[in-house]
């Protein structure tokens, strides 16, 4: 009985310790606050601020701060920029999160198989990984999205398909390191099957770097989605920050605001995500903090 509680305490403490370190990291906390604010605004903003992002509601190119109704002005068609920012964040964040999830699933699966089994499995999977690293990611994603017609799902899948190699390499390295440790040998000795060792013994111990990597992947995926929508390859029926920049691109010399605010929104989202990622990294590796 007392043994079990001791084991539980031990199992909890690394995460708790990481959280304790994270809580003391001011930039990381700031990132968490900014990101929460952005997520809440995109989720619930429309309850407080009515208006469809696609509706033409006013004269085009109304500068910000002139009309109280449209605090950030209007774009080249006379659409409200605040409405665009509030509704455009949802798809960007959703695609970013989904793409990161897909990236992690593919990357972790292939990396774990390569690292765990080694030999020809490793060889084959690493050659495939190298092959995918040769394809310029954005271009390949553009091709995929165009071939399979753009929707939020195809975009998320395309981003996932082009971004997994780095995660795979990281997972493989972690698995190679951890599989040599005593507790893995011990699990083998009591007859645990490969699947169990991989997913229930090694993976939880490889979690810290993978969590950090997942966070940073969300940031990259958001930039990716923004780039695709900017090029006009997003779902044309869904407003997104990248699309707002792309659509107003021709008129930047007449009106700076329709492109500036969505860009700032993307920047602050990715910035806060990367602050969180850096904070997690520091929290999991206290020794590196002095750097």
């Amino acid at each position, binding site marked *: 009985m007392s043994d079990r509680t001791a084991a539980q305490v031990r199992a909890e403490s690394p995460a708790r310790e990481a959280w304790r370190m994270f809580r003391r990291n001011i930039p990381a906390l700031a990132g968490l606050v900014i990101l929460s604010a952005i997520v809440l605004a995109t989720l619930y903003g429309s309850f407080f601020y009515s208006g469809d992002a696609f509706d033409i509601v006013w004269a085009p190119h109304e500068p910000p701060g002139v009309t109280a109704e449209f605090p950030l002005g209007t774009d080249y068609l006379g659409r409200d920029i605040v409405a665009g920012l509030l509704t455009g964040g949802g798809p960007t964040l959703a695609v970013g999160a989904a793409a990161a999830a897909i990236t992690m699933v593919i990357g972790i699966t292939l990396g774990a198989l390569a690292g765990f089994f080694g030999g020809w499995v490793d060889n084959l999977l690493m050659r495939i990984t190298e092959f995918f*690293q040769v*394809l310029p990611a954005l*271009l390949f994603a553009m*091709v995929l999205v165009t071939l399979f017609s753009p929707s939020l799902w195809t975009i998320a899948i395309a981003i996932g398909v082009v971004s997994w190699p780095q995660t795979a390499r990281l997972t493989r390295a972690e698995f190679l390191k951890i599989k040599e440790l005593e507790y893995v040998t011990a699990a083998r000795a009591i007859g645990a099957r490969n699947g169990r060792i991989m997913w229930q013994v090694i993976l939880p111990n490889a979690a810290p770097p993978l969590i950090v990597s997942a966070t940073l992947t969300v940031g990259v995926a958001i930039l990716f989605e923004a780039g695709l929508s900017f090029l006009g390859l997003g779902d044309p029926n869904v407003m997104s920050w990248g699309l707002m*920049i792309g659509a107003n691109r021709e008129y*930047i010399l007449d009106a700076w605001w329709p492109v500036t605010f969505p860009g700032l929104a*993307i920047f602050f989202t990715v910035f806060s995500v990367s602050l969180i990622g850096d904070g997690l990294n520091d929290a999991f590796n206290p020794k590196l903090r002095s750097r």
Partner: protein
Amino acid sequence: MGSGFLLRRIGYGLLLMLGVVVLNFLLIRLAPGDPAVVIAGEMGGATEEMLASIREEYGLNEPLLVQLGIYIGNVLRGDLGESFFFNQPVAHLIALRIGPTILLVVTAQLLSIFLGVLLGVLAARRPNGVMSAFVSVFATIGYAVPVFWTGIMLIILFASVLPVFPVEGMTSVRLRDAAWYVQWLDVAHHLVLPAFTLAIIYLAQYARLSRASMLEVLGSDYIRTARAKGARERTVLFRHALRNAALPILTVAGLQFGNLISGALLVETVFNWPGMGRLAFDSILRRDYPTIMGVLFFASAMVVIANILTDWSYRLADPRLRGRT
């Protein structure tokens, strides 16, 4: 040092390129719809006659493996197909545009490595100093800014507020008949903003990386030896430390090259730079698949070549790797 290494590396690179060709082939076949229609492109206004000639050229009535053989054979002969939108061979389209892309990408790469390493080395001299703080903040910001948006912001700045650099295209029409060096300078002048836009993200990353790498190297025994010899601080930093700290930077530079090409795609679109990115964008909007596949092929080839050059320079920089396979 062994030319065997270089040959093996090139052989592997060619294998990777064969993979890209097969991938291109599969993508067209996997896309929904008749491959002939896909190849002709939605905007091509394909007639029945045209589709028949496409089926003939690509052997679309043959079994899949034969089709693949025909396709690979075509690529080996330098025939990447015909763009039905531009009404020109794809190889010709790309030949016209690959130069500007290489110019942009290589300039941005050199610029970001040079400035980034310089910043990182200066920061590493004082791990807790102002420069170090600046490098960390700059790196986090540089990572989070969408590259196309940086470009747009620079265009707004330089088009209206500070009109010292051209914000569009690669050449000035009025200089079409000027002497060659005037034209070269004109291209360089046009290159400033796109190259800087593209460089700035990676510059930040190289600065952070080289700072960390320098800090590690500066703590090593051979740096103490160099100081004990009576070497100047500048010599210690740039001769003894940087040569060693450069190794991880080189690795990342190689890995980043693919991302750099992706970034170039966006930057070319923003600045109307007449390169492959611009071509990719135009052909994707027109669903001109032969051209898209051609761009994918050449962009991948650039990455493969960059990787070979990286591996090779890595061996030049690190004598411990020479003589090994």
